[in-house]
């Protein structure tokens, strides 16, 4: 304790700049761990670093450019919604791992999966959240879709009820989630077209009325799986770029831009609908 106390007091005397948002730990953590004490610093990628190519931004596997240069990293949260057993986890698994299991068990221990896509000098990191079964008795926690930039609402084309439930989810998102969330509707199990109960046109019409992206997908055959993820990613992605070019310098005062600590990128994502003047 005495040693700790001295250290802590050193901290008191030190001057640490204002942090804005802290994600205590995240996917791209900086971690200092010393054996001696409980002394750990974690922070996520920072807005400032993202805006400064070549900075000390963490570039773990996947974020590194093939030619070794570093670019911006955009991380964005995508949530899957839909009735149990419509194939949410299968879609993610197909997208992230390129796999399909006929008798997919609910994934234990996987809070979310990540997939990284590089475009020009920017790395887009999807953080794909699965419901963990909390939807089963209509008990999904709102924190699930907090700050999500995109949602894929999945139904099963062989089951009319799941389509009705999908519509409820869309309403819920429009009511509760961030106002600018991009929503895609996925009619999954398209390989089972002979058992089809939801007509393509019906779903397409509904999607158009509600401004949703729509595709029929098959996690089994991989049909449209990559397409729907990328389609949902791209408009958000473009907005990001515009957002940064508009907002970057005036938004953060200089002292916050160089601290490299704790200005969570994802927070910026959360806030942009409020901060940003209309993009149009």
């Amino acid at each position: 304790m005495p040693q700790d106390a001295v250290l802590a007091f050193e901290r008191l005397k030190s001057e640490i700049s204002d942090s804005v948002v802290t994600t205590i730990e995240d996917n791209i953590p900086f971690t200092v761990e010393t054996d001696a004490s409980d002394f750990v610093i974690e922070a996520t990628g920072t807005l400032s670093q993202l805006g400064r190519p070549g900075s000390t931004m963490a570039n773990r596997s996947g974020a590194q450019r093939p030619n070794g240069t570093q670019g911006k990293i955009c991380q964005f949260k995508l949530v899957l919604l839909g009735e149990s057993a419509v194939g949410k986890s299968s879609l993610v698994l197909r997208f992230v791992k390129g796999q399909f299991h006929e008798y997919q068990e609910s994934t234990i221990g996987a809070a979310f999966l990540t997939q990284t896509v590089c475009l020009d000098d920017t790395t887009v990191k999807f953080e794909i959240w699965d419901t963990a079964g909390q939807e089963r008795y209509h008990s999904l926690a709102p924190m699930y879709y907090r700050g999500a930039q995109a949602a894929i609402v999945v139904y099963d084309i062989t089951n009319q009820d799941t389509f009705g439930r999908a519509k409820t989810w869309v309403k819920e998102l429009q009511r509760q989630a961030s106002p600018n969330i991009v929503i895609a509707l996925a009619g999954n199990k398209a390989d089972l077209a002979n058992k089809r109960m939801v007509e393509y046109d019906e779903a397409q019409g509904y999607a158009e009325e509600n401004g949703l992206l729509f595709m029929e997908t098959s996690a089994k055959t991989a049909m449209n799986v990559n397409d729907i993820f990328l389609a949902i990613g791209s408009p958000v992605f473009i907005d990001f770029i515009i957002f940064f070019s508009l907002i970057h310098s005036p938004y953060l005062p200089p002292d916050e831009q160089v601290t490299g600590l704790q200005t969570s990128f994802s927070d910026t994502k959360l806030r942009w609908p409020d901060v940003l003047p209309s993009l149009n």
Partner: protein
Amino acid sequence: MEDDLPTEYDVIVVGTGMTESIVAAAASRIGKKVLHLDSNEYYGGLWASFNFEGLQKWMEDCRKPAKSSQEGEVTASTKEVEKLIKAGNQFSTVFNIEEKWYIVEELAESEEGQSVSKITQTDGEEQGKGGGDVDDAKKAEDDETEKNEAEEKPDAGDGKDVVTSAPTKQWSQAKVKKEYRKFNLDLAPKLLFARGSLVELLISSNIARYAEFRSVTRVLTWLDGRLEPVPCSRADVFATHHVTVVEKRMLMKLLTMCMEYENSSKDFEGYEDKPFIEYLKSKKLTPNLLHYVLFAIAMATDATPCMEGVARTQRFLNSLGRYGNTPFLWPMYGSGEIPQCFCRLCAVFGGLYHLKRAAEALIVSEVDSKTTCQGIVSGGQRLETEHLVLGVGYAPPDFLQTAPPGGLSRGIFITDRSILPADKESLTLLQFPPVDGVSEPVTVIEVGPSTNACPPGMYVVHMTCKQQKTAREDLQAVVENLLHMEFSDGTVTRIDTDTQSTQTASPKKHSQDGEGGEEGEEEERKEKNDSVSALKPQVLWSLFFNCPETSECDLTANVPANVFLCSGPDLDLDFEFAVKQAKEIFTKMYPDSEFLPRAPDPEEIVLEGEEGTPGPTFEGDTGKPDAEGEDDENKTEAGNGEEDAGDQGNSEGAAAE
């Protein structure tokens, strides 16, 4: 009627409060089969955060008499030695609810136009935007965001205007209600000490990834009838005008003494049984310093014993320097997110969730005068369990020996500006000391739009204190000191400056609007001299309520050995009590198991049957190795971390050695 649930569990948890959720997560994490129920349609019970509409609904529910299902006879198949005990009803627990508006229901169309035209007359430049305001107000809810932007602009314009005549942003009840989903109002607002047990638990369990935090930007205190920032960092010490150089040294010396108490205990000899204040006085601190240390840093009172005061001081100082300028973090979207994070972890590891599902009764057997809980009756189903964890609100009345000894007085206020305007949005903690007519210290937390507590242009002020009379009476004195809580129809203009616009405007706008801002500040200073009261935030809406403080209840006396009761929100600033209680309950249930070991990162999860099949590749994708040697990863992290510490260029780096 209700969904059928599987009937056998290792642990059934009823109630999604903080302690319950941590226990559920911990049990699920070590592979136990967990069922987690809550009779409400939301998570968190008395720890929840709501948007404006949700809070209205909550109040309605609280006012309703006990649900009829609780009164009816509960039937379920029971074995010979078993009996049914009806579960408690939590809605009997919130009382003295007083909600009030201080603004007009709806702005008349003409009035709204008028206020805009005033602005346009004085500042032609704003005309277009001002017009947009009126149009936008008519737009559908979908355009909310744009509307806010448009609405804020006329405010920013005020900075350049002669403001005394034109009212600033006018709120009406309708306008506030329309923005309902931009609110996150906490029933039990809690801060996290940066080195408190919850932060450590969030990190060690890897649950931190589900939540985001904002660091509290300033700690204020009430000194000589006004708000003063408490110096937390050296920068603050330099900035403060209230501490002289001599005092600064004195302060540093005293704090060092407290921090190194173990080494310098001689210094404290003779004060073991005396109040902290006596010790501080013996150090010949000036009244200002005494106030800072006693009320703001130690968050103590005159009666706090010396050793407790030292411990509290240490707690504050220990958490400094980790995440920001102050020792505190605030969860984005409010405190109610935290229980949900633990629930999610529970679900991720297979826990079953069912909201809107109550436990009607407990099935208790008595063999050889040893009572054991066999399970619960829920939705007419008999659900069996090894252990039962109950939120105190669900506990059968017989389980509690005495009524809760105390209660909490809570106040929530939506205001139109900060209690102490600054040039950028602040997140404030104020421990209001028991002075100026305030009998119990009141914890005041002010959060702004950047935490998603409220829409732009507003602030939310939370007040919490120990209950003595009703919440309103208990908090009245602090309210009077800090807020303007009287009806305002907007016709009588208080001496409104642009303080609102400068403080609520985003830093971006501020810097663009630099000139206006400066003028504003000057004006503000002038104002301050003229009349401090004129700057008090106008309360738009207020809510008072009382709820029981159950942290000091004896929760084990009359309870079967495999039933564990969990307290509701306590008075403390942090969640420490809930973490401690959850750990104790878990250890009683599973003494040999680790409490919330670290959950794997997505990168570490190798799915069954996974071979080297690459995922989809994209232009320039290097192909992400999913389960690459963890060691490498750790090295990278450590490397980055060191760089990072170096970046800070301060003691952090030294501390690592």
